[in-house]
């Protein structure tokens, strides 16, 4: 701060304190690396994850009588039967006979909002990514609640129905597809160990452990945004970073990529909603 050091008398203790901190920091910091310290930062964040605020709001929205039909979502079938939320996320995306298509969690929630509550699809899909207390997203809250009910459950995406298999294959092709002005593909950033963009580690999605760790930690409260972000958001933002055209929310492309990545994470316990930088 300009000028503050000029007040010598009262602030000698500050200078002494600063010196003590600097001297003390030397030998100790040589032993712990920056990665260890950042790991400590991430661990310290786990206690008290603001994602819980979204989970609580989402549970309220799940049970509230809403939409033109004033009905709750409690009869929504997320794949394990009407109203069964526990463990449902670990099996998504999957084929739903009533819609005759493969759906991820977000498209399925939209489906239920339309079919049960009478919302128009446009209204249900409005504002998928919230921004501040004035522009909260209902979908993000519902996703937080539903995924929270799969915490600890092992990922178990089936490839049984022909459309599920097709979705996986399309997702795989999309993962390796290079395009846009920089000829980027998902694979460009996520094809090897120990890669990073600036200080952000990039998971190696071509390997099982990388794929598992990445998929099971979304949705997550993103500290840098102060928002809970879902997997649809993560894909949307990757497309933006690759300089691709905008990824349409709930599109088949987004579901295909989700299918590919979710299935590749099979066997790992779901660990969300998490908290990240």
């Amino acid at each position, binding site marked *: 701060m300009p000028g503050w050091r000029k007040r010598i008398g009262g602030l000698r203790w500050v200078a002494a304190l600063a010196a003590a901190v600097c001297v003390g920091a030397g030998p100790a910091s040589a032993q712990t690396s920056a990665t260890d310290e950042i790991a400590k930062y991430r661990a310290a964040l786990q206690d*008290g*994850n*603001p994602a*819980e*605020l979204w989970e*609580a709001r989402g549970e309220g929205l799940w049970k509230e009588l809403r939409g033109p039909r004033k009905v709750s979502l409690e009869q929504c079938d997320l794949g394990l039967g009407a109203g069964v939320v526990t463990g449902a996320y670990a099996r998504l995306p999957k084929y739903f006979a009533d819609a005759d298509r493969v759906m991820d969690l977000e498209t399925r929630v939209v489906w239920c909002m339309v079919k049960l509550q009478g919302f128009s699809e446009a209204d249900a899909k409005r504002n998928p990514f919230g921004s*501040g*207390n004035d522009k909260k997203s209902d979908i993000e809250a519902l996703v937080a609640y539903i995924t929270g009910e799969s915490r600890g459950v092992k990922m178990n995406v089936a490839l049984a129905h022909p459309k599920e298999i097709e979705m996986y294959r399309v997702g795989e092709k999309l993962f390796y597809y290079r395009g846009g002005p920089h000829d980027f593909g998902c694979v460009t950033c996520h094809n090897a160990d120990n890669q990073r963009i600036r200080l952000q580690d990039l998971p190696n999605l071509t390997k099982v452990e990388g794929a598992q760790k990445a998929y099971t930690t979304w949705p997550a409260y993103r500290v840098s945004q*102060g928002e809970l972000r879902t997997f649809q958001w993560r894909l949307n933002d990757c497309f933006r970073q690759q300089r691709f055209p905008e990824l349409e929310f709930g599109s088949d492309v987004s579901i295909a990529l989700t299918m590919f990545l979710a299935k590749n994470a099979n066997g790992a316990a779901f660990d969300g909603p998490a908290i990240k930088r």
Partner: protein
Amino acid sequence: MADPMKIRASVAGESTEVKVLMSHEMETGQRKDGQGAVIPAWFIQTVTVTHGGNTVLAAQWGPAVSKNPFLSFKFKGGAKGDKVTITWVDNRGDKRTDEATIA
């Protein structure tokens, strides 16, 4: 009316631990929007935690406390089934009071 807080209170021996997550923008007043206008400061100024009619923690906050604030502390006394009440008041005069049962 702001979203409810998420409060966890648990007792172990003589000590009750309180952990709370509050839903609040905690806008610093330093940021500008797309048009260059300053986004006004909007943040929790006071937090009061009571148990059995006694204040067990009183805090004054500035906008440097993180968005969606987290707070954790412990106090003596407090038994399973007791209520812990937390109130926050922000610089707009909005307030929120929630309570939790000690587990």
